[in-house]
């Protein structure tokens, strides 16, 4: 599986500039800070139960099987998005697609590193900021550290990951990142209330 896209990974470095969306944008408001995070490697991983163990081994992180949870190890996080679906994010530059290509068990791995943009929302008012457009219960009981969910923010889809009691990672598609950042900026103005 997945060899087609992975086999030519050892080629020359790009001769042109990478220009990530919203690169470096930040905003601070009372109780909350927004920051566009650096690029990361990402795959959308789909697989049946029988493949989970082998894929977990190959990826070096145990794929979570409980709804709304995630697992992280050595800069790599696997977020449960559905019964057979994970978003794998690698923040240390290792390519999860290459690891998946090593195993023969049934699965689908598709590179989406550039599809998503990540925005961090941190501070005591982080949950309130997100709750301005996200209907989920973000109390620590209902959405503890490590909780993850594909959900909505205002009018767009996001993937939400709680990275600390007062910190979240918001992932959205590239062309929605401007909307998401603007929405969070508006919400941040009122989040300390």
């Amino acid at each position, binding site marked *: *599986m*997945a*060899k*087609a*896209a992975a086999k*030519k990974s050892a*080629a*020359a*470095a*790009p*001769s*042109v*500039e*990478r*220009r*990530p*969306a919203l690169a470096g944008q930040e905003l601070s408001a009372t109780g909350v800070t927004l920051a566009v995070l650096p*690029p990361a490697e990402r795959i*959308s991983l*789909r697989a*049946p139960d029988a493949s989970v163990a082998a894929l977990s081994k190959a990826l070096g992180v145990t794929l979570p099987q409980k709804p709304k949870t995630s697992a992280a190890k050595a800069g790599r996080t696997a977020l449960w998005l559905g019964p*057979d679906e994970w978003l794998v994010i690698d923040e240390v530059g290792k390519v999860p697609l290459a690891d998946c290509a090593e195993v023969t068990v*049934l699965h*689908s*791995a*598709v*590179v*989406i*590193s*550039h*599809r*998503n943009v990540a925005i961090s929302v941190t501070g005591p008012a982080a949950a*309130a900021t997100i*709750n*301005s*457009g*996200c*209907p*989920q*219960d973000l*109390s620590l009981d*209902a959405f503890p550290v490590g909780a993850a969910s594909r959900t909505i923010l*205002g*009018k*767009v889809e996001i993937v939400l990951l709680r990275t600390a009691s007062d910190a979240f990672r918001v992932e959205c*598609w*590239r*062309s*929605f990142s*401007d*909307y998401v950042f*603007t*929405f969070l900026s*508006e*919400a941040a*103005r*009122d989040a300390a*209330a």
Partner: protein
Amino acid sequence: MIAAFRIPGAGRLRQAETASFSFDGHSYAGVEGDTLASALLANGVHLIGRSFKYHRPRGFLSAGAEEPNALVEIKRDSARKTPNVRATVQELYDGLAAQSQNRWPSLSFDVSALGDIASPLLSAGFYYKTFMWPKSAWKNFYEPKIRAAAGLGVAPDQADPDHYSARFAHCDVLVLGGGAAGIAAALAAAETGVRVILVDEQAEFGGSLHFESGAKIDRQDGFAWAQSAVAKLKTMDNVRVLSRTTAFGYYAQNFVGLVERVSDHLQNPGRDLPRERLWQVRAKRVVLATGAIERHMVFADNDRPGIMLASAARTYLNHYGVTVGRNVGVYTANDSAYAAAIDLKKAGVGVAAIVDLRDNPTGPVIEEARALGIEVNFGRAVIRAGGKLRVSSMTVQPKNGGGERTIPVDAILMSAGWTPSVHLFSQSRGKVAFNDETKRFVPGAYAQDCVSVGACNGTDGLSATIDEAYAAGAKAAKDVGANAKGNKPKVDASENWSRGMLGAAPGAGADTTVKAFVDFQNDVTAKDIRQAVHEGMRSIEHVKRFTTNGMATDQGKTSNMHGLAIAAETLGKPIPQVGLTTFRAPYTPVTFGSIVGHARGPLFDPTRKTAIHPWAERQGAVFEDVGQWKRAWYFPKAGEDMHAAVDRECVTVRKTAGLFDASTLGKIEVVGPDAAKFMELLYTNPWEKLEPGRCRYGIMLREDGFIYDDGVVGRLAPDRFHVTTTTGGAPRVMNHMEDYLQTEFPHLNVWLTSITEQWAVIAVQGPKSRDIIAPLVEGIDMSDEALPHMSVREGRICGVPTRLFRMSFTGERGFEVNVPADYGQAVWEALWAEGQKHGACAYGTEAMHVLRAEKGYIIVGQDTDGTVTPNDAGLDWAVGKKKTDFVGIRGMVRPDLVANGRKQLVGLKTKDPKVVLEEGAQIVGDSKQAIPMTMIGHVTSSYWSENCGRSIALALVAGGRDRMGETLYVPMPNATIEVEVTGMVFFDEKGERLNG
């Protein structure tokens, strides 16, 4: 200086803290903590507005949210003009400017009040009857005149400069209403540690404790207890306390909408403060503690300014320190009005008389009133009020007839009893039940996890209310898994009210001229209700719509029960058989701003831009909206209009080459061992035998056999397809595929991933396209033998991974370069630099449309409309003849889909090559036929083609392919255009340029 009607020492406001404000241009002084209503009353102003239909002078009926009369416009600046604000809930701030509404030329002299004299013409249902002739006059004369005369305030004419915030919240126990009951319930729940939200619409908690001077709880004055209890709740981490917040809607599964008024009460709200904040709360349990609303007495001219609810007068005195008159009369059918008379008397206000409709009431308040020397009359009715701009007298008569006596007064306080506020309970789909003994509707069967406590549940007396509320709060907490351990508040003293009456009192008059108002805001009188019954209305739903009783913005908070009782009496039926109308959200009016929240300006809808967008912007591209995307439409050079730019772009692409941003095309990666099987089922085309590295144009149908989407699909590996869709179709095609995969073909091992945004797509089209791309590509043999038309390779361009498609949507040799989106702009710039060496251009969506039309390539959604089959579109070749199954295979062969004479896609050439047809124009076979003509088709695409030197068009025409060479006609407003039916390919019919 203390205002004339402010009583020193009375009320809770610090009378030294003054604020100045204006009403209709007159300046007044008020006190911090006042409402606009209390401040005006302190200055002796009762006349506040004109009524909706008859333009009768009106004063304050209430001191709260139920107010039907006192609607004013609050103006902060030219853009911040809020109409229809209830003066009874608008908090005063220094500099507040208010204006009366619905009057001309002035509040005290309003010419439309003539409508009051002409009122026989305006009785219930008048607009169904009176203004019917001549028919045309309704639209041009009657309706505009009635609309202008009848009305509320004027909507602001500028954009709202304020901003509105929104918040989703979750809690275990949501308590709606912050009177004694709500506070007790919140305390009980909060002490267990569960998450509690306590909400009240007023600035300060306490509800009826604002006026109920006889209440003592935990050895404190009732209102003081409320403040200390709420202060304690505010210190608790598990409790959120929201004042100035109205629960306006109760939706499914304990989802409750709240509007918090954040800054309407502030003199200078900070720019960062929202005006309002919408809370959407999901609660495990809801406690409804919404209280009760006092009813007025229904008698002749009961709407004169100065006539108000007894509890309102008490609130103005006991909370705001304001008396509503110097010599007040009281008209009541229950005990609560006595307490008002007693409080006023004790404050030094003259009480002319209490008129009690009951025959022999007894009780402590009656004894106390007598002991204070107040004249008390039993078994008597106020049959009319005197005065016009202000009440001047009340005329009293024994209720069974007899001698009249007119008593001069400057205010009348009235009470017909209390109506439990079951609005939110009813909105929750709970069913109310009529208690025949107490004559009130109270919560019956519950539909959601909520409970009603206190006055809204028909529970009388403070002690019983607190017992019930505290137990309900504790139970709600227990239901979600927590146990109570707190102390129940102890009621040391309370007031007690007996029942009252429903419907018209004797002074409502049986004749047709008396105006005894039931619904003040919509000017509905007792006789209107009776008339509705006489004219055949039987259900309260019909009576309501015929009379408009309870249909104003106050939603009949004071009028519903009276209206119902009068209808029931006239029908001779018991009240429950006539029924109560259903309550709908919102409980009180909600601003559009709070509903809209953040969704305005750039946040109205997402604006999606491609990675290459900044480059196009710098080049001066003109953009068009395609769904949420901004796409470069054309790239005008200096001095070029759209026409010239598009012509140049089209010619350049065919002469040398053009670059086109195709990033918005939907892209789906289909992966798994059964990927080809899945593709076979979703598309009409065969896929099993498509070699990896090759592409095919695919057509997707719906089950009914009509074209749903199309696009080029590349097979990257035996188990991996790169599917493209139309830009607009991307999300729904993904859903369509996922839907079939999960419901019809769950046995297939295949998964779908949207990769639309992973890849930026740069189309390079034209005879020089290969020359432009080749120098930048590594690892891909670009020769025609190695990379023929309709093939795909993975490799690198500018050192960046690419999926390089050789394909064409122009008919020229063409490529689509897919690169990871963050590299899109840089790779585009590199290709642009190469292109410049060959004289290539950038082209936009308009040139793309023209170029594909020159080749007869269809656009799904433009040349098809959901009723076009592959055969209709001339695409039979793309349907696998040997295939036994795919979505739409059976729909496609339905008899009417294969019948002769169906509309088929053909080309059209105008006889005059310079004439460009209108897209959407209708086509007829014979231009001489009588109107209405038989239309045989319409134009789907039409352009000027500079490459062809003439106009070109595509059209759906009945039996089109059998009409080749025929002359048809396109009738337009100014001329009938002659066209010739042709094939769909206008340029390079043999397709030689694909390898040119």
